């Protein structure tokens, strides 16, 4: 058997980076260091990390309004991410985007997206582009269960299936589209089964099991790279916080929340590393946690010390050349 120790540690480190970053963002939002609307990835870490670990740096990713996890999993820089959330000049978009439009374009992340389902067609086009240019790149579209009911989902999957595009559709099914239980607005149980309508496989995985997600993504990436076309992965997971920070509404049963929080993807992975694979002990894991906490702390300092963007530049960069406003 191949030694996966490095990969498994990478899973852990990356999931933890998301967990600690997002937990801090939650606090910073309460302290009004971060503005607007913030949707946290807490609880869904295994999906982004499992999928992005199966990709190369050149592969494309489109993300969602709940997008911090995807950027971190693809290798994003915590300093520039935090600075963007702090609305500063040093952020990824110089404070023009914020949480819902965060991206590291040098890592071929084609953006978080404030529109539910907005990135599905973009990833489809990135896959088409890769195919036309013959680059063997793969495009991944992350989206939620809610987006799978949007027209763009069906149009895009039909196009990708017809043209056998190298794209992986990753549906993060966290059971709720904003505040509505998906069972109330969808007649079929399985989202993965919708792939059948478009002529390619759909698989369901435990989205809180990083290894299971990784294996499904690897298989899908292999299919895509060898010209066999798209795959739809339905990763079943749960968000630990509300739809957005400050969401205090009661639409999820308490027992359901408790049950899912017990299935914490990071705790599950820690236990497997220790007890199933025997590759880590508590001391090592705690060291990693300390290192990541330090990274996040530095990112907060970097953001807090960064300059604000200049108002006189607010309406520049709209077009290839400046247009009179």
């Amino acid at each position, binding site marked *: 058997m191949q030694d996966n120790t490095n990969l498994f540690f990478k899973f852990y480190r990356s999931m933890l980076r998301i967990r600690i970053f997002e937990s801090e963002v939650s606090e910073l939002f309460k302290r009004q260091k971060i503005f607007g609307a913030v949707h946290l990835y807490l609880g869904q870490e295994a999906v982004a990390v499992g999928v992005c670990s199966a990709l190369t740096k050149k592969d*494309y990713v489109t993300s969602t309004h709940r997008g911090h996890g995807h950027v971190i999993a693809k290798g994003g820089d915590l300093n520039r991410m935090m600075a963007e959330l702090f609305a500063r000049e040093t952020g990824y978009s110089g404070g023009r985007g914020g949480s819902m439009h965060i991206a590291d374009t040098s890592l071929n992340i084609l*953006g978080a997206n404030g529109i539910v389902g907005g990135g599905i*067609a973009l990833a489809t086009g990135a896959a*088409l*582009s890769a195919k*036309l240019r013959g680059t063997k790149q793969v495009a991944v579209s992350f989206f939620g269960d809610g987006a799978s009911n949007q027209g763009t989902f069906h*149009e895009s999957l*039909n196009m990708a299936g017809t043209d056998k595009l190298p794209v992986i559709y990753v549906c993060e099914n966290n059971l709720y589209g904003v505040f509505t239980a998906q069972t109330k607005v969808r007649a079929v149980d399985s989202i993965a089964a919708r792939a059948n309508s478009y002529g390619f496989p759909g698989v369901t995985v435990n989205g809180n099991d990083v290894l299971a997600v990784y294996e499904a993504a690897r298989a899908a990436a292999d299919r895509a790279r060898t010209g066999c076309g798209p795959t739809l992965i339905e990763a079943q997971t749960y968000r630990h916080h509300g739809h957005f920070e400050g969401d205090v509404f009661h639409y999820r049963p308490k027992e359901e929340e408790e049950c899912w929080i017990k299935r914490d993807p990071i705790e599950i992975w820690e236990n497997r590393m220790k007890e199933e694979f025997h590759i880590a002990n508590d001391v090592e894991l705690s060291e990693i946690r300390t290192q990541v906490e330090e990274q996040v702390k530095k990112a907060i300092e970097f953001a807090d010390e960064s300059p604000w963007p200049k108002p006189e530049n607010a309406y520049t*960069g*709209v077009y290839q050349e400046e247009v009179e406003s």
Partner: protein
Amino acid sequence: MSRSITFIEAVREAQEQKMEQDERVYIIGEDIGEFGGAFGATKGLWQRYGAERVRETAISEEAIIGSSVGAAMTGMRPIAEIQFSDFMTICMDQIVNQAAKIRYMFGGGLTVPLVIRAPIGGYIFNAAQHSQSLEAWFCHVPGLVVVIPSTPYDAKGLLISAIEREDPVVFFEHKKLYWTKGDVPEQMYNVPIGKAQLKREGGDLTIITYAYTTTLCLEASTQLEKEGIQVGVVDLMTVSPIDRETIFSEVCKTGRALVVHEASRNCGVGAEISSLITEHCFSSLKAPIIRIGAKHSPVPYSPVLEKAVLPQVEDIVAAAKKTVAYS
């Protein structure tokens, strides 16, 4: 060498020459393959460049535009054909929330060099859902360039410029102009985006217009000349961003302005132009600016009803006389 070809042939030729020159250019849309497109804008291109570069799709406007935005962000230069511009309502998210904003939202890290070609306009008895001129919707969105040529020469040169541009360009083609002919050079050339052109000189009055109504305004000007009224006609060609300089310099010379378009007058491009003129040329104005546009009604089917809704030559003539008579 120049020869006389139709507007639609000019559009086809611009696409063909850019495809030949730049392998990043591909075309995507409905019925555009072997069939050559609903209006023939891609005739022969599928046969020449194959199905990978002349991509015929399902009737899925959102996937057509969305995939084109994704491809444009990743190194391609797609030309997406929407069969009738009325159907752009179906893919507005991809145009307005994605294509237009991507450059800005991501701090310039991503750009969308995309051309969306779509036929606009009425005067062909196609009724309410196949006759609209919705350009004002797109002018209202920062990040979009909106181009509307009125001659075969301008169509070819502007389309080439649009394909070369790093911004998303909405390129509207008036159906009534598709089979009009004009001199078009065989070789490639650029007509600059964002520049209007004085299509006719005249010192008594300036008409500002674009698209098919340019033809109507030129016709009206010929009639008015017989009555001793000299009319200058500015064809905007690009409606966003607007060439303010040309408008201001012409209107300041004549002191009288008439703004004409086919789209509903209510909140149309004409309102913007009229307001700009008032802000910048107030002291030169000798008469109130008059706007002519469609009645605020869906475009009807019956020729007699359509005529009552869309601007006609006689409306332009009457408004011009009224403006000139004002003192």
